[in-house]
């Protein structure tokens, strides 16, 4: 019975950690997806980009560096993923604290009855 309970708690912790990481990797995966296009491996689509017209080339001036960079999520997907991750993180923390409190109670009880003391053995 005790083993079963332990196993259930263990599975729950694994699930929480896994789901937290999953939400984190969703953000990473989204960011990469924007850069790595699988069509790049399709030879039929390997065509040169259209050449810029002379007017467009003349208009193109060297970009000025920004005065200040204020970091923030780049798109709505990234910001949603971050909020989901934060929610999961705090939920995981709450559940883990609940489990650790149970463990503390048990460890204190064993210490109070001198379960591990050599005299008792």
């Amino acid at each position: 019975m005790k083993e079963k309970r332990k196993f259930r708690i263990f599975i729950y912790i694994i699930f929480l950690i896994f789901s937290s990481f999953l939400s984190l990797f969703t953000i990473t995966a989204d960011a990469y997806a924007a850069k790595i296009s699988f069509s790049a491996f399709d030879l039929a689509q390997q065509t040169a980009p259209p050449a810029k017209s002379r007017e467009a080339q003349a208009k193109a001036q060297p970009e000025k560096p920004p005065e200040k960079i204020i970091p923030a999520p780049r798109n709505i997907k990234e910001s949603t993923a971050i909020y989901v991750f934060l929610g999961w993180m705090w939920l995981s923390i709450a559940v883990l604290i609940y489990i650790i409190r149970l463990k503390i109670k048990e460890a204190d009880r064993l210490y109070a009855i001198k379960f591990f003391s050599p005299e008792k053995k």
Partner: protein
Amino acid sequence: MNIRQISKGILAWLEERLGLSVVMDFLRKKTVPQNKHTIWTYTGSLILLFFGIQVVTGIMLAFFYKPTLEEANKSVGRIMTEVPLGWIIRSVHFWSASFMIAIVFVHLLSIWIIKSYRKPRELTWMSGVFLLVFTLTFGFTGYLLPWDDLSLAATKVGTDIPRSIPWAGMWVTKFLRGGDDVSTDTLTRFFSFHICILPLCLLFVLCIHVYLIQKLGMSLPVPAEERGEARRELPFWPNFVYREMIVWLILGGVLISLAIFFPPSLNKSADLMAPAPEGIKPEWYFLFLFQTLKIFPARILFVSGDTVAVSLILVAAVLFFFLPLIDNKPEERKGKVITLFAYLFILYAVAMTAWSLLG
């Protein structure tokens, strides 16, 4: 063969080669005193936690950072805008540094107040003061690395302060800057200090500090000792470690939330010829020292005000380092005066920081 048998086999294999049972036996016997001051003992492991976070996020940032005059600011910009989750990693690094320094201050001040530095723990205190200096130097050297106008101006002011030290001042300033002025040499010097020299020094002193704590154990606070309280103890493993885990989880959550909601921004690249921007201030942990230097007049009798201020700060630092040797006997009056100084120092630091922030 089930999982339990496999894990037992692996543990037996490791035990045969590493002899880990000695460590486990030590951890099982290790105890932590239980009293109303026990809360301060959590700060020690918290510092280790934040140092670990600093190391991990620092390595991740170092993959992309380039310590050259042209690329330093651009590479930090790229970390924030192009590297996936780069801005969060930089933000965690920034906030974790502040958390670490704040907890180092709390840790040292709590030891000062409960007088845990008394015989035989003098060397533990002294190694702790070294760790404080290394941690502050980490903050100072790291501040320049984004190479924006604020960090350049703050470094110019910061590296100019040692110039007021009598005799050795000029040499210290030149050594810090790698020349007469802040330049590309200063940047590479600060970078090597930040990622190589300081971590090695800190790890070395940290090992000594942790060894001394394990060897001498944790002290019973003087107030509890004076009341003649019986020594109540709690096993370190697992009872105390479980309690520490709760604190780690909560502060870890707060750190990540702060890093997401309040990430540090990046100003435009520094120009060595440009005048210093108005209202430059150092990081919050140097504000009380910065304000102290500001309130001194330009000249006191025949000596420069800065020289007097820096000399006084150095004398205070030396007294702080040798505190266990000054407060070495459990004399009622002397001990109380030294505790009063601890409270006065906290009041002074808070007041000066508030003045600098509001002024």
